[in-house]
C-alpha cells in the first residue's frame, strides 16, 4: 500500500497543533531552544548538507542561497513567501491554517542562522484565514518569549510581522514581493543584484517559501543525514504536493521526493470510475504538461521531471482525465498569464496578450491552421528575454500543450469544435 511520509504534516489533523499550548505539548519550540545554542554557521552547513531546495517553485538550494549573504554586520531581513498563487497550489494555506507555529519556529531558527533581526510573512491578501492564524500565532510566540528581545536567554533578538498582499500573482516572484513590501507596484527587479545582496529597502534579504522554512526545523531536529534518507540523491527530503483536478480525493499529501506520479494519483483515490488519464500538469500551471506516456515514466522529483521536459515547480499536481478538452484548458491558462503579467517587459506584456488571443480564437472555433504554429513562434520569442520568469511560465505550457496535443488543436481548427465529447462547441 502506498502511504504518506509525514514530517511537516504529521499533526495536521490535530486541531490542538494550531495553538501554542498544543504545539508545545507535541514538541513545539524544543528545536528552537537547541538551535539557539548552536553555532550559526553550523545551522547553515546542516541546511546545505540536507540538500533542501526551495519549495516555492524554483528549487534553488536553500543553504546556498543563505550563503550569498554578505559577510558583514549589515542588517538583513528574512521574508517568508506566503503569496501562494501558482494555480493548483494550496499546500502553504493548509500549513498556515493548521500549523502556523511550525512555520514560525522554522523562521526563527532560520533568522538566527542568518543573523536577521526582523522577518515578515508576506501572505496573499485573499488568505484571510492564514493571516488571522499567523497573526495570532506570532502574538502567542511573543508572549511566550520565542520572539522579541533575548529569545530564551540566548542574546538573540528577533521581531516578526505579517504583511498582507493585495492580489497579484507576480508578488510570488521574490523581487516582486520585495517591491510590494516596499509599498510599490509588485514589479520584479532586475537580477543581479540578487536579494541576498540587495533586497528589501536595499538591504540583504533572504526570501524563502513557507514549506522551505518549516522544513528547516525538521532538518535541525533530525540532522541532515536523517532528512536525506527521504527522497533521492539530488532531490532530498519530503515534499507537500497539492493534488487536484480529476482525482477522487483531491488533497495535500506529503511524500518523499521521487515517488512515481502514478502512485501519487493512487494515493489520492485514483481517477473517477470509467475515466482514463489524459494528462497531468505536475508543478503548477507554469509547468509543461505531461501526456499519458510521460505520466507512466514520471517520478516526482526535480531531476526526473526535468528529464521529461517539465518541472516540479510548487508541487501542484493537476490530474486531467479524458473528459477534458486541452484547447479549453490552455485557454484558461493563457488568460491567467495575460491577466497577471505586470506589464514591465514588452515580450511578456505583448506575448501573453497574443497567446491569450490566439488560443481563445481557436477555442471559439475561429482559429486558422497556421495559428497553431504561431503559438509556438510567439512563445519562443517570450523565453529568456524578460526580468522575471513569468514570461517563460506562460510560454512553456503553451508550447507543451501544442506539441503534445496537436491533434486536439488541429481538430478544433478544422471542425470548429472540441474533439472531446461535451467540450467547447461540441
Amino acid at each position, binding site marked *: 500500500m502506498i502511504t504518506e511520509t509525514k514530517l511537516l504534516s504529521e499533526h495536521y489533523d490535530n486541531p490542538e497543533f494550531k495553538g501554542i499550548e498544543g504545539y508545545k505539548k507535541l514538541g513545539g519550540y524544543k528545536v528552537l531552544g537547541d538551535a539557539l545554542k548552536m553555532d550559526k554557521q553550523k545551522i547553515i552547513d546542516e541546511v546545505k548538507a540536507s540538500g533542501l531546495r526551495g519549495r516555492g517553485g524554483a528549487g534553488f538550494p536553500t543553504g546556498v542561497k543563505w550563503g550569498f549573504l554578505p559577510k558583514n554586520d549589515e542588517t538583513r531581513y528574512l521574508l517568508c513567501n506566503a503569496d501562494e498563487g501558482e494555480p493548483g497550489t*494550496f499546500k502553504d494555506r493548509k500549513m498556515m491554517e493548521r500549523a502556523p507555529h511550525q512555520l514560525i519556529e522554522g523562521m526563527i531558527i532560520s533568522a538566527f542562522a542568518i543573523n536577521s533581526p526582523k522577518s515578515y510573512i508576506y501572505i*496573499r491578501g485573499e488568505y484571510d484565514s492564514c493571516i488571522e492564524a499567523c497573526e495570532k500565532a506570532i502574538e502567542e510566540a511573543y508572549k511566550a518569549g520565542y520572539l522579541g528581545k533575548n529569545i530564551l536567554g540566548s542574546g538573540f533578538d528577533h521581531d516578526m510581522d505579517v504583511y498582507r498582499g493585495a492580489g497579484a500573482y507576480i508578488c510570488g516572484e521574490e523581487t516582486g514581493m520585495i517591491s510590494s*513590501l516596499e509599498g510599490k507596484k*509588485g514589479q520584479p527587479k532586475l537580477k543581479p543584484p540578487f536579494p541576498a545582496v540587495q533586497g528589501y529597502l536595499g538591504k540583504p534579504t533572504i526570501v524563502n517559501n513557507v514549506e522551505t522554512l518549516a522544513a528547516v526545523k525538521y532538518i535541525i531536529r533530525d540532522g541532515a543525514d536523517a532528512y536525506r534518507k527521504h527522497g533521492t540523491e539530488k532531490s532530498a527530503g519530503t515534499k507537500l504536493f497539492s493534488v487536484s483536478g480529476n482525482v477522487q480525493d483531491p488533497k495535500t499529501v506529503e511524500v518523499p521526493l521521487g515517488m512515481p506520479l502514478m502512485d501519487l494519483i493512487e494515493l489520492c483515490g485514483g481517477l473517477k470510475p470509467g475515466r482514463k488519464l489524459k494528462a497531468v500538469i505536475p508543478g503548477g500551471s507554469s509547468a509543461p504538461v505531461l501526456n499519458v506516456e510521460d505520466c507512466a515514466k514520471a517520478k516526482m522529483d526535480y531531476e526526473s521531471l526535468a528529464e521529461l521536459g517539465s518541472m516540479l515547480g510548487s508541487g501542484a499536481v493537476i490530474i486531467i482525465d479524458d473528459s477534458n478538452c486541452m484547447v479549453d484548458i490552455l485557454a484558461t491558462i493563457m488568460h491567467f498569464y495575460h491577466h497577471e503579467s505586470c506589464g514591465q517587459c514588452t515580450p511578456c506584456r505583448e506575448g501573453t496578450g497574443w497567446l491569450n488571443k490566439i488560443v481563445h480564437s481557436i477555442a471559439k472555433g475561429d482559429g486558422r491552421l497556421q495559428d497553431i504554429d504561431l503559438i509556438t513562434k510567439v512563445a519562443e520569442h517570450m523565453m529568456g528575454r524578460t526580468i522575471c520568469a513569468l514570461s517563460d511560465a506562460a510560454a512553456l505550457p503553451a508550447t507543451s500543450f501544442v506539441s503534445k496535443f496537436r491533434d486536439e488543436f488541429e481538430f478544433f481548427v478544422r471542425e470548429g469544435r472540441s474533439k472531446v465529447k461535451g467540450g467547447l462547441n461540441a
Partner: protein
Amino acid sequence: MFELSEEGKQFVKKELERYEDRYSAIIPSLYRVQKENGGWVSDECVAYLSQLMDLPEADIYEVFKFYTMFNQKPVGQLHVQVCTNISCSMNGGRELADHICKAYNVKSGEVSSDGKVTVSRVECLGSCDTAPMMQVNDRYLENLTPESALEQLKSLESEL
C-alpha cells in the same frame, strides 16, 4: 468628501510607524479606506489618503491600480468571486459563475440592482482541493454545487 473615521485615522498613523518605510503603509491604508468607503476606492479616496499620509498621490494611485483586491468601482455588499482557473473550471466553476449571475440577473462584474451582490470570475484562490469554490467577501465557500452556492448566498444575504 470622503474622510476616515477617527479610528481609521489612528490605524493609518500606526501603520505609518509600523514598518521600516512609510510607503509600506500604503497597502494596509488602502484596505482600511476600502472598508470604510463601502467596499471600493474612489479617486477622491486616493487624494484623501495622499494628504493624510503625506505621500504623493501618484505613488498611492499606482499601488491602488496595480492590485486586484482594491475595487475601482462600487461592488455589492456581497462580493462573490468565483474561481474559474484550471481545477475549478474542470469541476464546474464556470457553470457555477453563470448560474449565480443568472439567479441575481447580473453580468459578471456588475452590481445587482438592489446593490446587494456583485459576481466576478477570478483566478486561482488556492483552494483547488475543494473545487469548485468561491470567495464571498473574506470567506471561502467550498465544494459547491450551483444549488448549495445559492443556498449559502441566501443565508449570507439574510445576515446583511
